[in-house]
């Protein structure tokens, strides 16, 4: 039976919910539904809310599975559908987080029609599957009690609205504040950072600035108003959701200037270089049948979208928010469902964090890539970030079974630009040394020079230890 105690791995991210925890057994993910959640679960199913949300792809689909007789403490055991990759809100671009916020509000609106409400609105509960945001926490719903305010209001403001406002008004990179504030950005902090012009946006004024002032005034105190006034009507609830929705919709995408989002268009070698490289990379990937591909430094996703990777799940990462937003909008526009773009800076990758450093896993714990693409990346690691070639080779050995990697020599016009502001202190950065270091960890299956350039693309295979 799936719920038997033998070889169960508890998922550390779900310890906060007393109504049911997530565990893995034999590589399959299950969720316990405890007796404390019985009434809410029944309402979720009976009211038709579950089927409505899962049919529309808003809520993760699950199957109920049998429990063993000794599992009397479990009300139900469910097996949710598999998500290719669990991402975190600080890895999302502006548009991704905005879509996640709008989905949360849409789900809450539908839930109200079925007599239920969201008891939490954590940004960690929204994942991206098949190119769309989806709620993965089936146990987030509780029966709506008339007169009760939205318990997840504070969390929604801290997890979504404050982050989006900071990204839109101040700097898109401020989403990284989430890394050090896993419970969301404190509203007083957001209010302090936001510029004066945000006070003229009614939604931000009410839900961030006045909300922060209200928290400060009333926190830890009991309000001396009569109980009649404490009722929060259904119209108030609907009004709150409408107001939050327009606040999110009114936040404009920040002006994202990046040296990288026009890289291939502006590249001195554009045109012929890209066409030749596409041909080479495609022919290398055709020989492999990777299930999971990690395109590191994906830029605007040109190589994440090649025909030979159509049947693979492709994780495209880049440190540029503008690039990731572009890939996300392309995926949406072209209904490309096998590609998940995320903001990851390889020099500062998402760490293991949260309670006991296990609640949120590092990017490397979550990725299990069959193939890694590292195109036009190594010269940035080596020259821009002073990383020795042996450290780069060790890193790729750890993360890649198969590797398609491009070596850009020092005399390449784009590599030369890296020396505009720094002296050439990299005598060891040569193709010969590159091959020598990588041969300690990989076998070079094939290499191809990109016509019209001195750049070389390699197909490598990890040497088993």
């Amino acid at each position, binding site marked *: 039976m799936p719920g038997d105690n033998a070889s169960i791995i508890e998922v550390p991210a779900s310890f906060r919910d007393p109504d049911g925890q997530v565990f893995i057994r034999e590589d399959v993910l299950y969720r316990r539904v405890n007796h404390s959640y019985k009434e809410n679960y029944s309402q979720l199913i009976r009211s038709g809310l579950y089927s409505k949300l899962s049919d529309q792809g808003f809520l993760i689909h699950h199957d109920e599975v049998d429990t063993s007789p000794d599992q009397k403490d479990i009300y139900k055991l469910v097996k949710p559908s598999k998500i290719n990759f669990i991402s975190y809100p600080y890895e999302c671009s502006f548009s991704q987080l905005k879509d996640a916020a709008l989905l949360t509000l849409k789900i809450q609106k539908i839930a109200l029609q079925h007599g239920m409400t969201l008891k939490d609105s954590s940004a960690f509960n929204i994942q991206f599957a098949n190119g769309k945001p989806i709620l993965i926490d089936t146990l987030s719903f509780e029966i709506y009690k008339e007169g009760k305010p939205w318990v997840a209001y504070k969390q929604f403001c801290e997890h979504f609205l404050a982050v989006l406002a900071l990204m839109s008004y101040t700097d898109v990179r401020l989403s990284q504040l989430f890394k050090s504030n896993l419970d969301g950005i404190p509203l007083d902090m957001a209010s302090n950072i936001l510029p004066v012009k945000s006070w003229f946006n009614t939604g931000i004024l009410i839900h961030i600035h006045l909300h922060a002032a209200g928290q400060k005034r009333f926190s830890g*105190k009991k309000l001396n108003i009569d109980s009649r*006034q404490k009722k929060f009507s259904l119209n108030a609830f609907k009004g709150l959701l409408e107001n939050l929705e327009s606040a999110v919709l009114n936040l404009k995408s920040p002006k994202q200037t990046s040296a990288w989002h026009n890289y291939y268009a502006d590249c001195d070698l554009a045109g012929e270089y890209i066409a030749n490289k596409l041909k080479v990379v495609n022919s290398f990937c055709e020989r492999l049948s990777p299930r999971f591909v990690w395109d590191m430094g994906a830029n605007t996703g040109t190589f994440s979208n090649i025909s030979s990777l159509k049947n693979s799940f492709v994780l495209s990462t880049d440190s540029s928010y503008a690039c990731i937003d572009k890939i996300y909008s392309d995926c949406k526009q072209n209904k490309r469902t096998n590609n998940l773009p995320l903001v990851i800076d390889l020099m500062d990758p998402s760490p293991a964090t949260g309670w006991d450093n296990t609640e949120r896993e590092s990017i490397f714990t979550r990725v299990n890539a069959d193939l890694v693409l590292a195109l036009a990346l190594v010269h940035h690691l080596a020259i821009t970030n002073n990383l020795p070639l042996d450290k780069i080779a060790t890193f790729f050995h750890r993360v890649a079974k198969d590797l398609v990697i491009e070596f850009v020599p020092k005399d390449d016009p784009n590599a030369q630009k890296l020396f505009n502001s720094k002296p050439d202190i990299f005598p060891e950065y040569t193709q010969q040394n590159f091959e020598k270091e990588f041969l300690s960890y990989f076998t070079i299956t094939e290499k191809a020079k990109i016509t019209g350039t001195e750049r070389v693309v390699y197909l490598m295979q990890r040497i088993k230890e």
Partner: protein
Amino acid sequence: LRGTYYLYLYQFQLNMQLKTVVINIFILLSTLTAKAQYIDPGSGSYIFQIILGGFLAFVFYFKTIKYRIGLLFKSLKKKKDAR
């Protein structure tokens, strides 16, 4: 033409009401008395939401009426065009 005029007037009134809502929240925040008793730290948000609720219900109510009036004008215009 008169219908459009009323609609504009209505929109203007709604915008004014929204501004009044914000001013009223300011006043309420500064005047409500609070007893010094311990509740959980999220209580600030909870109480703020209750204060906000009355005004949001008011705005939601008027928006619904505005929407219905809009629908009425649209159907009247359709009927007129059909003639």
